[in-house]
């Protein structure tokens, strides 16, 4: 019993990262109607960013977020101006197709670049408190992963506030709902797209940082994280960042439960089953608007 509880707890902890990974993808897809399949590679870059910030500058891994997030914002601006800004000029159907092509191309390029620069080795950030655990009855909670979950929640909450209160946050939501109507109220929709993409990339960077602290990064983790994020986006639906976070937790726990019930190899299956079931039974997702 306690083994199962322990597994579910670990599932919950990684679920927070699934939620954070999905939030950026959800924001970009919801606002721009662009599917950025290179989102996982952006997470991978964030992980390396944190790894080197810790290794070269001696920063605390969580403090490295203060560098990684602005860096990722900037990368998002560059990627928008250089690539995705051209995609949004097309109509919405064409956008998805074109963004898939560009996204896969970008993913391959970033993957190859990462192997070239940093080799294919797995890396993980080692911290002095990396082995610390909290004990709760029979449960052991790895401190670093608990902190990651809380930070993920904090970042999602921050994003939620930004979208709810900030003038451009409201503009981003308006653009997501009806971009032509947004134009007619005087919103520069292309700037809203730019901001949404930069924020999405920043979230990917933050997620990557937490992944490299609690887990590990290598150039090839991108596809796996894109898939997780995509499953969570489908599960949670568009339009609510907090809903996306909860969707991440659900996926994490469901994976752990399926691994416990059917054995480790079935961990990945449950996500795909959820993906199909949600698409058939409730295409809007659990919290979709």
């Amino acid at each position, binding site marked *: 019993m306690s083994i199962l509880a322990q597994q579910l707890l670990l599932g919950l902890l990684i679920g927070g990262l699934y939620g954070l990974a999905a939030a950026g993808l959800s924001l970009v897809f919801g606002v721009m109607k662009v599917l950025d399949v290179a989102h996982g590679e952006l997470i991978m870059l964030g992980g390396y960013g944190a790894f080197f910030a810790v290794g070269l500058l001696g920063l605390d891994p969580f403090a490295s977020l203060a560098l990684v997030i602005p860096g990722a914002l900037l990368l998002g601006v560059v990627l928008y101006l250089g690539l995705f800004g051209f995609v949004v000029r097309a109509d919405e159907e064409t956008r998805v197709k074109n963004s898939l092509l560009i996204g896969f191309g970008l993913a391959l390029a970033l993957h190859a670049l990462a192997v070239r620069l940093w080799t294919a080795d797995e890396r993980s950030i080692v911290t002095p408190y990396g082995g610390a655990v909290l004990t709760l009855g029979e449960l052991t909670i790895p401190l670093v992963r608990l902190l990651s979950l809380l930070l993920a929640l904090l970042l999602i909450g921050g994003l939620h506030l930004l979208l709810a209160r900030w*003038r451009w946050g*409201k*503009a981003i*939501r*308006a653009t997501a*709902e*009806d971009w*032509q*109507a*947004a*134009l*007619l*109220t*005087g*919103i*520069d*929709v292309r700037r809203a797209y730019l901001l949404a993409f930069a924020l999405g990339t920043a979230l990917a960077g933050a997620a990557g940082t937490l992944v490299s602290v609690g887990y590990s990064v290598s150039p090839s983790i991108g596809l796996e994280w894109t898939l997780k994020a995509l499953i969570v986006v489908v599960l949670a639906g568009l*339009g609510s960042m907090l809903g996306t976070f909860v969707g991440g937790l659900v996926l994490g726990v469901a994976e752990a439960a399926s691994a416990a019930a059917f054995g480790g190899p079935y961990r990945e299956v449950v996500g795909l089953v959820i993906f199909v079931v949600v698409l058939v039974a409730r295409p809007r997702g659990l919290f979709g*608007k």
Partner: protein
Amino acid sequence: MLDIRGLDAAYGDVRVLSGVSLSVGAGEIVALLGPNGAGKTTLMSAIAGLLRPGAGTIRWNGEDLTALRPHVVVERGVVLVPEGRRLFGGMTVQENLELGAFTERARRRRAESFARVYALFPDLRERRRQLVRALSGGQQQMVAVGRALMTSPALLMLDEPSLGIAPRLVAAIFAALAEINRGGVGIFLVEQNVQAALTLAHRAYVLESGRVVSHGAAADVLRDPHVRRAYLGPLAVRP
């Protein structure tokens, strides 16, 4: 004032507007009549900057609007209430209105604009915290007009404001338009309810198959036998 000369527009190979010329003076109410598919919505979209015309000019106080992006057209004081309202349904009444005051110029006059909209539509003040999608069609149309007013326009364009709205509310909306116009805002109106439109308007244009086929003072257009037969039904041919 809005001055349109020789405007052509097409969707792909389909010509929608051919050499349309018309004007809306400062503070004037002008109605645009015509059957479905005549190009009325296309003309409004072109003025709002949503559609780039193939030829011709759209001048607003001397400046060519055809080169500007839609949000800049709003900044210049020309705003469109599109057909079907196109509100942000998942947001509250107040959020919708706030988004109307997005441009720099409109933001400076935000408090004033809020007061003006709530004075015009007291219902909206009571419902300001409600989600727009929970409102009736008529109330939504009030939000749509209110959101456009929040942009602090000098020319308010409306595409079918009475579509799908209860008659009592249509009257309220037309009364509001008259009130808005008394404040000096020009109004350019596409409307199926020809009688109501021509009663409100100073002048009118009739658009058929993408061409202006007739124009004049609203009272004269209302007496025009062709207009009466085509838009007011056979019983209305003789006044």
